[in-house]
């Protein structure tokens, strides 16, 4: 045990270097800065948007349009005695120019049941996502005007009828069922909330597993590259102790770095959502409680166990792959098959419902030990505990098998002869 701790300390000291820490800290800072920028920009979306308006009609109906826009959180600059050409050349503060022109004869045309066209001019300043969000506000203008004016027209032409009823005689009341539980909520709304709450879980799982695998493979390859491996193998330390110290050391450091990533990613996500995740809508919270769609303490514990064993599996496989690498540069190449095994369940669980896939594909996914933590987060929400426990048992078996293989390789010539084989020709041709 003492020698294990001595080796473990050495592994951790070798892994946590300024070269390793600086990029992680910088990444956390960059994520936080981007998050805070996004948060500021998102908040700006709530500020009334400026629109220039040219009213060539000057009638009560065109004034009604003005009122509709003002009631819909737009700040209207009414341009008088200005041509369209001159108006499009006007500056509008920092915002991109938006100009609406209500043509002459607008009211007359509507009263004569002739469809009217308003002109909307928008100057493009960028194609970013946030500018697109702002543009979508302006795109809704026509629907807003139509909604109000059509209500007025219906009321005018059919005095005893409710315009809302005439336009929407059928509406829906949505229910979501989970097992035998029922809640009065729309599935789209529920899915959006669950996805926004759990979005970071698969990303973190993916990053932790990949990082841990690359770390342990690198420690083995570095021992070979720096020619410290032979010294270690001839020292009075059990080969299993060497394997175990490398596995645990890399696991601890990977988890530590994952925590850093999680902090950075959380700040970024909070920026994007404007911190809105914490202020859940009461109806939605009630629906989540009714349906039992909450990751309680037991859920987090199960997810943690599944993730921890998946990391151990990745470490056990990666330590074997690390032996194959000639040097640290070669780690990327030898760990590629492992990366593919991690990427497959990550994307499949992100885009598909595993239960709807063909049995062959489904069993292939179950056979990959890294699929289980990705599946666990969904199963916990839906209260399917048995598949999670079976997954954990399967992952444990895979881990034990690979640790035994790794220990056997470390106890045999193979730990060096794989390299010797590659260099054999060179060695004996000298």
């Amino acid at each position, binding site marked *: 045990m003492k020698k294990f701790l001595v080796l473990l*300390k050495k592994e951790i000291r070798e892994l946590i270097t300024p070269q390793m820490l600086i990029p992680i800290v910088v990444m956390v800072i960059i994520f936080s800065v981007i998050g805070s920028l996004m948060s500021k920009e998102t908040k700006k979306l709530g500020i009334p948007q400026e629109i220039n308006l040219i009213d060539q009609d000057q009638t009560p109906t065109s004034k009604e349009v003005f009122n509709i826009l003002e009631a819909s959180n737009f700040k209207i600059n009414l341009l008088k005695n200005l041509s369209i050409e001159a108006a499009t050349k006007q500056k509008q503060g920092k915002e991109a120019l938006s100009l609406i022109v209500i043509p002459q004869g607008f009211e007359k045309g509507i009263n004569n049941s002739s469809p009217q066209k308003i002109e909307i001019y928008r100057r493009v300043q960028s194609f970013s996502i946030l500018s697109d969000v702002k543009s979508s506000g302006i795109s809704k203008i026509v629907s807003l005007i139509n909604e109000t004016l059509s209500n007025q027209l219906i009321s005018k032409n059919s005095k005893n009828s409710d315009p809302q009823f005439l336009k929407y005689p059928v509406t829906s009341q949505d229910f979501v069922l989970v097992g035998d539980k029922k809640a009065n909520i729309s599935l789209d709304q529920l899915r959006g909330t669950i996805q926004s709450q759990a979005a970071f879980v698969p990303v973190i799982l993916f990053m932790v597993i990949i990082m841990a695998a690359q770390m342990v493979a690198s420690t083995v390859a570095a021992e070979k590259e*720096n*020619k410290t491996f032979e*010294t270690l193998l001839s*020292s*009075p330390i059990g080969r299993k102790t060497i394997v175990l110290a490398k596995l645990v050391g890399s696991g601890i450091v990977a988890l530590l770095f994952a925590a850093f990533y999680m902090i950075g990613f959380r700040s970024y996500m909070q920026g994007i959502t404007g911190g809105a995740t914490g202020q859940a809508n009461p109806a939605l919270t009630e629906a989540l409680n009714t349906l039992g769609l909450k990751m309680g303490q037991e859920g987090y514990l199960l997810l943690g166990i599944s993730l921890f064993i998946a990391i151990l599996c990745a470490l056990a496989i990666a330590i074997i792959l690390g032996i194959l690498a000639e040097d640290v540069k070669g780690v990327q190449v030898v760990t590629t098959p492992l990366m593919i095994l991690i990427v497959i369940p990550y994307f499949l669980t992100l885009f598909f419902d595993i239960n709807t896939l063909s049995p062959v594909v489904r069993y292939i996914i179950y056979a990959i030990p890294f699929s289980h933590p990705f599946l666990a987060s969904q199963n916990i929400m839906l209260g399917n505990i048995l598949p999670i426990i079976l997954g954990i048992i399967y992952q444990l078996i895979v881990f034990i098998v690979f640790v035994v293989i790794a220990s056997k390789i470390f106890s045999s010539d193979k730990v060096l*002869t794989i390299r010797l*084989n590659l260099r*054999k020709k060179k060695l*004996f041709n000298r």
Partner: protein
Amino acid sequence: MSKALIVNNLVKKYKEVEALKGISFEVGEGEIFGLVGPNGAGKSTALKIIATILSPTSGEVNIFGYDIKKDAQKIREIISYLPEEAGAYKNLTGIAYLKFMAEIFADDREKQKEYLDFAIKITGLGVRLKDKIKTYSKGMTRKLLIARTVMSRPKLIILDEPTSGLDVINAYEIRSIIRDLAKKGMSVLLSSHNMLEIEFLSQRIGIIHEGKIHEIGTPEELKKEYQANNLEEVFIKLNS
């Protein structure tokens, strides 16, 4: 002289290549035995087997009464091996590396301190021991590794090309360290393709070529037998 190491008919095959073709030799207690031969002769393979890193295809290796196949773990406690061009953990300081190795070889703190003090003295690196190993020159690293190899006062020291790539002054210093340690009773198995170094250090020499030992004797015996001025001439005559 009682035997520190007995190698008997040792064979090592890597698939179709036979690296060692049945070599036999012995090293006495407190003796420096030099295994000399060109690159690819099988020196490093023999040393790796004796250091318990590789397993023999056939033959016997016995170290202070322990069999290499049955008692590998026991053997690791009484030997110390310095591989050819060995490195150290670059992100550790020299002192942290020596401390780590002392903790590997000894469980109790007093012993660890004794090993560490001995190693610090041998390195002669002084305050530079507080610097990271990646800042060391090749000579400094080699001195650190020699100190690591002998710090636990092993019964048998296995040194593979101990002065390879070093300048004259560093190589001379390391040879002096090896000589002093042998005087204190440690047995040394030394491999080198530098015949002059082997002649300077070793009491007896085994000349190995293409996986076979061709001659064993003291430098004087070999020079006399082959009527040569030095071991280089012995080796050339032996191969011609």
